[in-house]
């Protein structure tokens, strides 16, 4: 219960209550005394909505908020305990065939990012989805996942999701909505749809597109617009400039020997990340096996994950990217006189490598680069003969609807009588100069459907709660075009409906359900013959087979690339989606908010990143406030200094500065959409930087740490003497070490992490959080260094003027054979088991935290507060196989002991040994690049044992004689690499 203001009406009411009871009031106990049914009823009468009671509470309070228990009465059934302390057993009335209560079940489905699908397996226990795994059979994602996929299961349960149909901000219901719409929609239909506009986010769903096209057939004057705050518009515009039509690019890394990236981002968060990273590392591994390096040359104005994984780097100004590409094109076309230009040394090397591997190279740029740069990159690839071999073009995966520009004009002219906004938040995410909110006032009937009651919902006449992809039927395409099916894993938690269901409700006399709509579409596509079998097969697989787009044979158009006007001097502001909350779609997801953002390692807000020189020039330090002005627009935010960024570049991330969203995502960071303009959504040239007064707290996961002269990340020049060693396991000792080593039943669990493969995407961190019920602590506690992530990804950097070496190192518990933490614990709360796991026994722990101070790897985390307290909806997500830890208890990575036990029991029942690969930890299974190998070291044939024999294998801080079970493979660098 929140504190009561002594001067308030409630306080008076409490006093009256107390007088009636004949007791003297005491302010200290006021809240507790006030917790009576009578008072409760009074509060309810006075506050029809509970929201005002929550205003001003910190995010940390989110996990304790009682609002959810008001709203979510139904879910409390999940944890019903009779008052006697005897829990209930509630069996089915009719148990569904094939279902075993309490046993996990997996469903093939998909998660969406910008409407684009990645194949997922959703694990449910007793009807509750609790974990997302990659779908190994999916042709695009091949079992990999990213942080967004892993966190989507938390988004499903979010108690801040919209839970009711709202009409003019009053609660209403679906029947009222349909009743009020029947007449109006009928009139629109009779009028050929004149005045009706539908606005969606990016759509790849074949069934939804078919539905919208059918509507357009029935109502030829209806318009369908698509608004994507991030989207792929620049990609398609670039292809249009080079090939005359919009196309998507797929890279076949297996056919490549050299990669050149001009501000590329194929390894960065985005819909392409999982598939592209998986294919890239596969090719890089194959090359390394053959003794050479699949090298990458990267030039970029600011560093990102793709830049980090490159082998040759150059920092170039944003305005120099196009000239640099132009010079590269001249170089590879054999034209002389490309002459000097930016990043000369880098360019010479890159061209050398490109010319050596003509037809077997890939040149890439980023999804948000200038279309002119995209077009130039296509031309370079064409000139190198890569088209059709290592660079493949397909039809655009996002279906091209009418652009939003024409909608804006029509709104202004008052031609829009009914606007249907489906899963889009244009009031927040339109460029400032589109003035969408103002234009919306000209529309008489505005209907919004979304997951949250967001900025747009508040300005619309109707707001409809949408279903989450995990609770609805649907389909979507993966970046390669594979039609991926989405099947519900739970009935809609908050009474939402899916977009096709809403469209059907508007136009059909007999509204159809999502399942029926999807089935009837695919029945049309797959044909009636054998449909049931094909449909069942597709649902089991999670995708419709052979639906990936065929490669297009294209040739660049003859006309030369347009010459964009040389950009003005001054600062270029680069506006990019946030690496963890994207365009703001995941702003209310606490796992993603608390996930350290790659490169800055900041959490819970966005920052303005500057180069050290630029910051010094303005006298700015980390956390100091600065204002960026471009055109008439300005934003103010805290500064974060990033080595390796160009001096004339300021980076900002989208998705923050939300006013109305929920208890997690509101009121943090600044809104970078304010800097966007319709003509320049990604870059503002000629900006200026001004020092603003004050500072803001920016919390980072990686600061003020001492390395004591150690070099934790080893680099292996290809073809050189191995840098790995096994000295960690041959340290002299007087102790009898057989006790820890000899796994009595022959098993010794271990993990090997390939640093060359780790791209720092953080999927493993969220996967671990999801699997192991790791709590979120909130910004304040994070600032105290109390983050609870069992697995962290350390970022080591080595930037000088001429090179930039970035390495990401996931650090779980090392499960040391001679674990120092075990010496520290006075109560034997951390002990070894017979298979070499370093266990944490929560019930024994008395919270001395000695183990943590003994741990050289700092992987132990202490529950300083009741971090695991959460609303019932969030509790329902938890993995029932893992104990939820209480306050005062130490915790750490267990190597997913629950998965080990499960495999052991299964093997034991079948009377066979555990097979290699049967136990996969959550982090290993989440990794898109398969950087983590887990298994039985005692089994000579196991994958992990052979990975340990790799000459790159070394132990972290092995000289301490901890004999860690987790070891690392050194990252590969070119043979001529110099420190």
């Amino acid at each position, binding site marked *: 219960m929140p504190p009561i203001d002594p001067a308030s009406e409630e306080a008076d009411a409490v006093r009256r209550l107390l007088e009636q009871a004949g007791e003297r009031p005491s302010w200290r106990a006021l809240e507790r005394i006030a917790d009576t049914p009578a008072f409760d009823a009074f509060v309810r009468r006075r506050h029809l909505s509970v929201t005002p009671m929550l205003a001003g509470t910190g995010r940390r309070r989110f996990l304790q908020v009682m609002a959810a228990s008001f709203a979510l009465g139904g879910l409390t059934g999940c944890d019903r305990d009779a008052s006697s*302390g*005897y829990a209930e057993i509630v069996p089915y009335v009719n*148990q569904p065939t094939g279902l075993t209560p*309490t046993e996990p079940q997996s469903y093939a489905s998909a998660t969406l990012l910008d409407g684009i699908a990645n194949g997922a397996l959703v694990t449910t226990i007793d009807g509750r989805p609790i974990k997302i795994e990659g779908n190994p059979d999916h042709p695009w994602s091949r079992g990999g996942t990213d942080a967004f996929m892993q966190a989507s299961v938390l988004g499903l349960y979010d108690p801040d999701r919209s839970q009711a149909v709202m009409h003019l901000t009053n609660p209403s219901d679906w029947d009222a909505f349909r009743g009020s719409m029947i007449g109006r929609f009928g009139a629109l239909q009779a009028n050929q749809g004149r005045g009706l506009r539908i606005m969606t986010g990016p759509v790849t769903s074949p069934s939804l597109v078919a539905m919208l096209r059918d509507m357009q057939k029935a109502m030829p004057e209806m318009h369908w617009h698509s608004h994507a705050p991030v989207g792929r518009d620049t990609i398609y515009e670039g292809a249009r400039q080079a090939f005359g039509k919009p196309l998507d690019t797929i890279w076949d890394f297996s056919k490549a020997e050299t990669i050149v990236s001009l501000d590329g981002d194929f390894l960065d968060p985005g819909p392409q990340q999982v598939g592209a990273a998986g294919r890239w590392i596969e090719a890089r591994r194959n090359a390394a096996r053959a003794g050479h390096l699949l090298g990458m040359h990267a030039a970029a104005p600011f560093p990102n994950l793709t830049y980090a994984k490159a082998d040759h780097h150059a920092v170039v100004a944003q305005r120099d990217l196009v000239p640099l590409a132009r010079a590269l094109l001249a170089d590879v076309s054999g034209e002389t006189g490309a002459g000097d230009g930016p990043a000369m040394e880098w360019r010479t090397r890159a061209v050398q490598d490109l010319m050596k591997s003509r037809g077997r190279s890939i040149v890439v740029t980023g999804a948000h680069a200038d279309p002119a740069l995209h077009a130039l990159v296509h031309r370079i690839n064409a000139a190198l003969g890569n088209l059709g071999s290592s660079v493949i073009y397909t039809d655009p995966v996002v279906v091209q609807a009418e652009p939003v520009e024409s909608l804006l004009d029509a709104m202004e002219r008052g031609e829009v009588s009914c606007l249907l906004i489906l899963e889009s938040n244009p009031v927040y995410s339109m460029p400032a100069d589109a003035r969408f909110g103002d234009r919306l006032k000209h529309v008489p009937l505005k209907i919004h459907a979304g997951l949250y009651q967001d900025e747009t919902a508040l300005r619309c006449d109707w707001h409809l709660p949408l279903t989450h992809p995990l609770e609805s039927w649907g389909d979507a395409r993966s970046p390669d075009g594979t039609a991926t099916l989405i099947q519900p894993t739970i009935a809609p938690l908050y009474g939402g409906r899916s977009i096709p269901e809403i469209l059907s409700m508007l136009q059909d006399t007999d509204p159809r359900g999502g399942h029926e709509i999807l089935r009837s579409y695919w029945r049309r596509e797959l044909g009636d013959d054998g449909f049931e079998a094909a449909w069942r097969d597709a649902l089991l697989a999670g995708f419709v087979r052979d639906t990936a787009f065929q490669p297009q044979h294209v040739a660049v158009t003859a006309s030369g690339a347009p010459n964009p006007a040389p950009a003005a001097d001054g600062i270029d502001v680069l506006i990019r989606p946030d690496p963890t909350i994207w365009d703001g779609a995941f702003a209310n997801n606490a796992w993603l908010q608390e996930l350290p953002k790659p490169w800055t390692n900041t959490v819970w807000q966005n920052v303005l990143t500057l180069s050290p020189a630029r910051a010094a020039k303005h006298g700015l330090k980390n956390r100091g406030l600065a204002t960026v002005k471009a055109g008439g627009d300005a934003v103010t935010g805290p500064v974060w200094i990033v080595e390796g960024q160009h001096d004339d570049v300021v980076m900002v991330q989208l998705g923050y500065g939300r006013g109305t969203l929920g208890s997690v995502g509101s009121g943090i960071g600044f809104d970078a959409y304010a800097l966007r303009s319709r003509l320049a959504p990604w870059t503002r040239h000629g900006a200026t930087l001004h020092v603003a007064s004050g500072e803001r707290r920016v919390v980072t996961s990686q600061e003020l740490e001492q390395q004591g002269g150690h070099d934790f990340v080893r680099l292996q020049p290809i073809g050189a003497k191995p840098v790995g060693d096994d000295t960690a396991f041959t340290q002299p000792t007087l102790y009898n070490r057989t006790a820890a080593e000899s796994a009595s039943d022959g098993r010794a669990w271990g993990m090997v992490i390939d640093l060359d493969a780790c791209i720092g995407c953080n999927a493993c961190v969220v996967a671990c959080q999801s699997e192991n019920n790791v709590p979120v602590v909130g910004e304040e506690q994070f600032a105290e260094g109390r983050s609870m992530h069992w697995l962290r990804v350390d970022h080591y950097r080595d930037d000088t003027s001429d090179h930039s070496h970035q390495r990401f190192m996931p650090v779980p518990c090392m499960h040391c054979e001679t674990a120092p933490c075990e010496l520290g614990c006075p109560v034997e709360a951390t002990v070894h088991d*017979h298979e070499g796991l370093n266990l944490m026994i929560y019930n024994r722990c008395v919270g001395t935290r000695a183990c943590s101070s003994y741990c050289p790897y700092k992987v132990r985390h202490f529950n300083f507060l009741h971090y695991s307290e959460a609303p019932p909806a969030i509790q329902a997500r938890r993995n029932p196989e*893992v104990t939820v830890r209480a306050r005062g208890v130490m915790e750490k990575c267990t190597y997913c002991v629950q998965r080990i036990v499960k495999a052991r029991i299964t093997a034991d029942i079948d009377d066979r040994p555990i097979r290699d690969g049967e136990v996969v930890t959550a982090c290993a299974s989440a990794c898109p690049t398969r950087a983590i190998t887990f298994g039985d070291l005692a089994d000579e044939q196991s994958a992990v044992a052979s990975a340990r024999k790799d000459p790159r294998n070394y132990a972290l801080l092995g000289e301490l004689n901890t004999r860690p079970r987790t070891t690392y493979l050194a990252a590969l660098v070119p043979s001529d690499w110099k420190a």
Partner: protein
Amino acid sequence: MAQLFQPRADAIFRFVLWCIVLGCFVALVTAESLSHSEYLTGRNMIQAQPTEFSHFHHVAGLGLDCRYCHTQVEKSATAGMPPSHTCMTCHSQIWTNARMLAPVRESYAQNVPLRWTRVGRLPGYVYFNHAVHVKNGIGCSSCHGDVAKMQMTSQPHAFSMAFCLSCHQNPQKNLRPQDEIYDMKWHPPADQGKRGKALLAQYHIDTSGRLMDCSTCHR
């Protein structure tokens, strides 16, 4: 000045000291016996259930196998509780009007599940698996007692850690051949020592102490 303490103060002081010592002892003994009491462990306690289901009648009387209702016991961590449908396979034919069965019929007709009260209590941080026990020679009655004798079901053993460990430390004394797992009357035969050893080998039970690892039951 007069003495502050009379000579008998010494005696009083000794008496008080002894009382404290004895008091502590009594408190410890009480706490210890309370922790084993039926009241706190729930041992032999009978709970109100939606209908007075009798294992005595169904098992001893009719000879139903445990697995007729607890279908999952050989493949899952939980033994499984029968859906109302299972009850109705017989009770749609016999005792169709019995007053005692009204809640079951209602549940089936209205599609509202029965809400049974749990009898065997296990803390949330203990992860017990039925399947691995019955597949490795531990019979139902070893933990649940002779259910066939119970009119109303209760739990004859306190599921304390000591109870689990007594067997994990020395499993052979409770091992049975597979065909005797569901025998409620099973008692260790005279030569259990020898048979237990043979069964240990037959079931490949790890005797190295793995069964005593914390991670076997806690995660």
